[in-house]
């Protein structure tokens, strides 16, 4: 079934419009990051820099707490990803293997947690962390991120486990292996891809999170990258557009990178049909 040429042309025009709408902001960020100060204040700017310069990146790394913020983000995101996965792996096994109410409850909880605005949660969490002495600490942030990533990691992992045939376990058990051995030797290796995907998801969500960090972190030395940027864009960045763009570009790279890795798989799955067309 081949569409008419006219239709095809219209489709390409539409697709082109989408590509511009989606891609142009990224191109502009990229271009701003490489422009020199005089070019940035021109009333009619050019789309690409006339004179490419790395100056903005020098300023970005030199003047702000960028390294520190990236380090903090990295610690928070990595710790969140690992802890979340560690504690959700055993639980997800239960969810996958027992047809209990826990499953329904956990899905229900994921939904409920979406309906409630964060302002309802953040105040009690703030008071709680304060009483624990964890306000203004990365540990406090990690704790909150772990909890809010949990429902999703549980759900992801349990579906990986559910896809592993029960017969494998049963066969091993009839051979006399203990349950622990079965879990370690049989389930875990098969689960590795799921674990990696889960780790990456929780990494990105922790890397990108802003609201909880805004409330919990007070010390600029502990700021995560989104906090640094939000502070920078407030006063300094507005007068230093180039370094602002450079900082934003650097900050977004890690999550884009991780996303790109998993996305290849996900996209090929989700969008496979469109290639076959």
């Amino acid at each position, binding site marked *: 079934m081949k569409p008419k040429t006219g239709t095809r042309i219209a489709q390409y025009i539409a697709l082109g419009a989408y590509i511009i709408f989606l891609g142009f902001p990224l191109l502009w960020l990229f271009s701003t990051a490489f422009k020199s100060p005089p070019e940035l*204040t021109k009333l009619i700017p050019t789309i690409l820099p006339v004179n490419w310069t790395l100056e903005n990146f020098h300023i970005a790394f030199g003047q702000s707490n960028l390294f520190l913020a990236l380090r903090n983000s990295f610690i928070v995101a*990595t*710790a969140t990803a690992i802890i979340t996965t560690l504690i959700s792996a055993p639980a997800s096994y239960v969810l996958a293997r027992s047809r209990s109410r826990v499953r329904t409850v956990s899905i229900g909880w994921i939904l409920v947690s979406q309906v409630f605005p964060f302002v309802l949660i953040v105040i009690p969490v*703030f008071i709680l962390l*304060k009483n624990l002495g964890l306000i203004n600490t990365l540990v406090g942030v990690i704790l909150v991120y772990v909890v809010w990533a949990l429902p999703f990691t549980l759900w992801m992992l349990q579906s990986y486990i559910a896809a592993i045939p029960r017969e494998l376990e049963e066969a091993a058990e009839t051979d006399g292996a203990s349950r622990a051995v079965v879990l370690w030797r049989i389930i875990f290796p098969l689960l590795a*891809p799921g674990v990696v995907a889960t780790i990456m998801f929780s990494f*990105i969500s922790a890397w990108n999170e802003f609201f909880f960090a805004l409330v919990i972190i007070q010390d600029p030395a502990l700021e995560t990258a989104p906090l640094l940027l*939000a502070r920078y864009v407030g006063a300094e960045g507005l*007068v230093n557009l180039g370094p602002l763009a450079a900082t934003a570009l650097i900050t977004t790279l890690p999550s884009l990178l991780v996303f790109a890795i998993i996305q290849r798989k996900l996209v090929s799955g989700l969008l496979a049909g469109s290639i076959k067309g």
Partner: protein
Amino acid sequence: MSTTRYLFTQFLTHRYERHQMTVHRRTTTLLAVAASTALALAGCSTTNTEATGPITLTFSSPAFQDATVKATTDIVDSWNKANPTIQIKYQKVDPNSVHDKLVTQFAGDSAPDIIQDESSDLAGFTRQGYLADLAALIPDGVKKDIPESVWDAVTYDGKISGVPTIAQVYTLFANTDALTAAGISLPTRDKPWTWDDLATNATKLKPAGDGYGFAWSLKSPALGLMSSGLAFGGQYLSGGTAKPTMAVTDKELEVPKRVKALLDSGVMAPTSLAQSGPEILPGFFAGKYPLILAASYVESQLEQKAPAGFNWSMLPLLKGTTQGQAANPQTLSISEQSKYKKEAMKFIEYYAKAENIAALSEGDAMIPASKAAAEIVTKKLTGRHGWENILAASSQLVDAPWNKADNFPRFKTEIGNPTFQEYLGGKIDLETLRQRLVDGWRKANE
């Protein structure tokens, strides 16, 4: 939370378990390496905090302009070198959210020991018991070096909760070449421009085609309009208590009315209504408007960014019936939560030394509260871009009536800024402006 959304779409399409089963082993290795690095880093950072021996005090400052940040860093560094037992940790905060940040910090028991803020923000924090009373701690030298009238601005019910350092004013910046070209001579300190002169000259400067005569960065207009209103005797608040009463008479409305007239006649650039001080500069440089009114700190941006050959100067404060503006100095406070108030005051004393205040004053183009510092700055900067006009303004500063009002910060952001903007933007008339300000103040104090 974009990733949570991602997962949701996966639920909706119930596909992901089938398609995610293979991820390269290489990524697993990468992650393991990343994880161990992160844990190692986390380990380092936790061991640092349990330091014994020298104490560390935190000091938060909203300074953001290169010169002031450098001056602040220099002060902290030289102090730290000289005082190994009392180390200061300098924390930069966003100047746009100093108040919000402090509310959060006080509530979370995580406030810095030494806090830089401005006097109009201190009343509420003082009365809520967050700021230490410095009266007994302030050394005589510091006390004597700052005029009594400035101390009044930071005294609340007999408690002093901040040491004033430098104060900003709202001042005119002129593109002097453009003024000369239009045959307009610069005002002098003896013969400053009145608001009428501003209107006349700005109108004269407006080109026939595109362009304007004047711009005022009014993104957060309340403080600037109210402070300038003092020149016409517009007090807004009276009573000097925690909850003074608001009256908006013709005196208070004088400045908003004049600004509106400039907007309506096309003399003032409407874009500047939504821009902050530094943001109107590109237009100033490009000749879109040869006169701008902005907080004096913008001087530092001009100094740095003005294109070669661009001649400019700060002009004397505009005159209404007087040249009065609000004294709203930057202050250093000590939080009540701090365990080391005496040590904190020692640092403040050091910070308040004449040379240091002079450096900060130069960096932010603000008036030093200290007499000794003012002398240094006067000697150094007289004749440069109209600095003498700014320094002379110190005698014009009056203790603003809102300095003592607990709920002024809230009123300013929730009522003042939006309401003035609506009036200037032509959304509401003068009477509605008056009504909203009075009602808003009442509500903010309920």
